[in-house]
């Protein structure tokens, strides 16, 4: 890349002539674009303009294609276009402006993180832009990789990470992204923990934390912690609104460079970065296209119009399985789906026997096997399998309506009671069929005398707002892991984050308006034993100790049943036969790892 650091537009202006544009036009559109010399003029040059958007940050968008498609004689001969189909098309690809996995799929191709998840490992860490890293006490030290360049040609140094961090979390920074633009990950993963970042040396970083915090290195592997280019950040301008447009011309160090954002056709063109420091890339271009309808998207892979797709539902799963030209890849996911019972709102749920009765009444087996068609497994604790601290000894609650009735009678609710079950209606990974699941819960609970009124939300955001305020009696929710750390489930979802003394004695719940309450805990559960354990574990660096603490916490959560544990869903991908076998590694955290993918 560095060899070729003038961007394409400048290049065009300099050479100008038709002879040059033939080459360049080939670059712009990639292998399939055939351009006649006659109109090559407008064609090639314009492609560059388009990707540069409003013209700021020229070094960005237009570049990276120079060697990307191998048309300019560097002999590597990368060819082929990999098409990745998905269900949504966001229009801003700034890792700091979103919590959306759809954005992360693309930014993970463009950017690198200091530390990264090993593809397919379920959350092990490996070197990224850092070649060595350690966390001791409250200090993290990292040695950085040398000779890595951004797609724009600048060299990567520690200063880039510092600017990235400041843009994300420091409101005093000149190029701060702004409260209304940055995503919640800013404080959640970095800002709340980091005290200072020392980037005085080019290839080493020292990060001081405010307290001992075990998950920190994992947080650095999250897509939101991707390293942006300091040069680009400064070029965008000091106004937060200007920083926003970084997302339409992202520049990173990753295996693919951003080439064209085609909003009217809901797709994105990326070109290979042959200077990439890691494995791959093995294709000249990647196209992310959008097909909202699940089954249509799978059909597109079957037809060979796209190569890989995600977010399959029960039906797509079968479609891919029945097809000759597509295969289905499945892997255990790192997520959990649950039904939370709100103790802060309903007195009945404050009785453990009632919560256990509900857990016993719901037929989670039918839910995972029939509604989710077997591509999820029954959950029995908050933490999914394969994550440190998952307790193998815990079994799912079996469906036992008699015992449920007995428990309800003991608790004094033999005549039953009624409550509201709030749910979202569009499929999410951990709950691919929320409405039907709600329907099943309703039918099951009816048999033990509880009448459930389903309150369905057609859109997800107002739903989150509703559960945030604790207005639900019970609700469906779930969680995909951010960083494959147990803390990311147990502390984040079940600790109320209020001071220990804010929880009254002999009470294992607190109200949502308690000072400091984290509304991600939608059941109002505040079990002090549990809280002590997970808070201690958060500061514990010894893996073995940590593991046993989390296993204990899981057992407690299972027994106390603040949630009905519904399922752990698998991560599913449909892949067309054109993709070379085993070149694509499905991963349940990070990715998709398209740098290694080869197509025939």
């Amino acid at each position: 890349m560095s060899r070729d650091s003038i961007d394409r537009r400048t290049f065009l202006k300099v050479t100008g002539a038709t002879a040059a544009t033939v080459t360049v036009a080939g670059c712009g559109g990639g292998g399939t674009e055939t351009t006649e010399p006659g109109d090559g003029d407008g064609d090639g040059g314009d492609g560059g303009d388009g990707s540069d958007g409003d013209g700021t940050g020229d070094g960005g968008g237009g570049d990276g294609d120079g060697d990307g498609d191998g048309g300019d004689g560097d002999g590597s001969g990368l060819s082929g276009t990999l098409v990745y189909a998905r269900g949504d098309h966001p229009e801003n690809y700034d890792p700091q402006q979103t919590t959306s996995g759809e954005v992360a799929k693309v930014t993970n191709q463009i950017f690198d993180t200091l530390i990264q998840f090993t593809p397919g490992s379920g959350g092990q860490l490996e070197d990224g832009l850092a070649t060595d890293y350690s966390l001791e006490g409250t200090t993290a030290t990292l040695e950085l990789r040398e000779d890595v360049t951004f797609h724009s040609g600048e060299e990567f140094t520690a200063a880039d990470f510092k600017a990235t961090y400041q843009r994300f979390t420091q409101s005093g920074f000149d190029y701060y992204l702004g409260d209304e633009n940055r995503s919640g990950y800013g404080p959640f993963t970095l800002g709340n923990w980091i005290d200072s970042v020392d980037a005085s040396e080019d290839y080493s970083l020292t990060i001081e934390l405010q307290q001992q915090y075990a998950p920190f290195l994992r947080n650095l592997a999250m897509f939101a912690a991707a390293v942006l280019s300091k040069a680009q950040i400064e070029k965008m301008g000091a106004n937060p609104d200007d920083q926003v447009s970084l997302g339409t011309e992202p520049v990173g160090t990753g295996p693919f460079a951003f080439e064209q954002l085609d909003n009217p056709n809901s797709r994105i063109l990326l070109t290979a970065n042959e200077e990439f420091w890691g494995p791959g890339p093995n294709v000249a271009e990647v196209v992310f296209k959008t097909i909202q309808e699940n089954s249509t998207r799978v059909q597109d892979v079957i037809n060979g119009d796209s190569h890989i797709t995600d977010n399959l539902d029960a039906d797509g799963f079968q479609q891919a399985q029945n097809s000759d030209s597509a295969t289905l890849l499945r892997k255990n996911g790192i997520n959990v789906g649950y039904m939370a019972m709100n103790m802060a709102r309903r007195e009945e749920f404050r009785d453990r026997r009632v919560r256990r009765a509900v857990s016993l009444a719901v037929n989670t087996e039918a839910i995972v096997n029939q509604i989710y068609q077997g591509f999820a497994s029954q959950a029995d604790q908050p933490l999914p399998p394969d994550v440190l601290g998952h307790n193998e000894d815990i079994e799912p609650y079996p469906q036992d309506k008699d015992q449920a009735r007995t428990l309800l009678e003991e608790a004094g609710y033999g005549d039953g009671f009624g409550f509201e079950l709030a749910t979202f209606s569009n499929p999410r990974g951990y709950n691919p069929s929320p409405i039907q699941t709600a329907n099943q819960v309703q039918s099951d609970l009816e048999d033990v005398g509880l009448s459930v009124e389903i309150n369905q939300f057609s859109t997800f955001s107002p739903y989150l707002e509703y559960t945030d305020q604790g207005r639900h009696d019970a609700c469906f929710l779930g969680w995909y892991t951010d960083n494959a750390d147990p803390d990311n489930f147990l502390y984040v979802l079940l600790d109320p984050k209020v001071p220990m003394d804010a929880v009254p004695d002999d009470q294992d719940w607190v109200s949502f308006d308690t000072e400091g309450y984290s509304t991600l805990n939608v059941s109002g559960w505040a079990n002090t034993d549990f809280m002590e354990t997970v808070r201690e574990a958060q500061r514990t660096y010894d893996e073995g100790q940590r593991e046993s603490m989390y296993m204990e916490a899981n057992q407690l959560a299972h027994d106390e049943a603040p949630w009905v544990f519904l399922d752990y869903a698998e991560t599913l991908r449909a892949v067309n036969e054109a993709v070379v076998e085993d070149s694509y590694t499905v991963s349940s955290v990070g990715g998709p790892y398209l740098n290694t993918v080869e197509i025939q």
Partner: protein
Amino acid sequence: MSTDTHADDGPGDAADDRRETRGLLERVRASPFLSDLLSNRLAVAGLLVILTVVVVAVYARVTMDLTELTRSRLGTDVPDRAPPGWVGPAAWNQYLFGTDAAARDIYKRCLYGAWLAMKFGTITVGVSTVVGVSLGIVAAYYGDVTDNVVMRTMDVLLAFPPLLLALALVAIFPRELGLWRAVAALTLVYTPRFARVVRGAALKVLEDEYVNATVALGASDPRILARHVLPNTLAPVTVQSTLNFGLAIIDLAALSFLGFGAQAGTPSWGLMLSRGVDNGLLTGRWWLSFFPGLVLAVTVLGFNLLGDGMRDALDPRMREAVD
């Protein structure tokens, strides 16, 4: 939104003076409207379809238990997504239309869907008719400022593409209302059409001299409106209602498809159809969507055939207002 203002110099109508002296029933019987309509075979076919649906609806409402049709039967011995008996391994008459993803009987749900379609269709069209007719007549009769205020408001509502307005309106009603919010939204969307049709028709009646004569004789406002204006707008209103009924069924279904319609598990045709399309059309489980789609389409076709026939049989002077 524009046709109503166009004066139409249709041929003079000799029936005018006769009309005044007869009772409503008699008038209807003697009107060329009914005889025209009954001689239109397609319209009669439409009418038959509608009557059948009504009979089925009442039958389903009386004999079936809604909770039984709504509740999930997973985990029982009823298979989910089972094909109709006559194509699958089961006895030919078992699960006539197959079972759905929650192992419910699609045949029974289709029958009950007729009741829901009729019920919500009637309410949607009924309310918008009543409100629209009142507004239209008041606007036409009082004219001037009243007319302007009413009709400009209607113009505003008519300025939105119908489904779009419904979509935006659905968002503001409380979720707990379920299908009712779709009903409320569509009612608001349809009302201006009735107001426009009725106003147009009423204006033509008011132009007629006999009404002027009645006014001159000192008849009161309500009396004139009720005895002279209203009866004469009945025909175009009926046509508009019929055509809108089919539209209401299809629009309610569309809102369900877009996620703003009936509550989970409700045996409404629209919901069954859209869930069925999602859950199995491309994997070969055609029965999930085919039967709900078929009954829905046939019913809507019935209303369209009848409405179309009525439109043709309508007095040409009134026809222009209806679209």
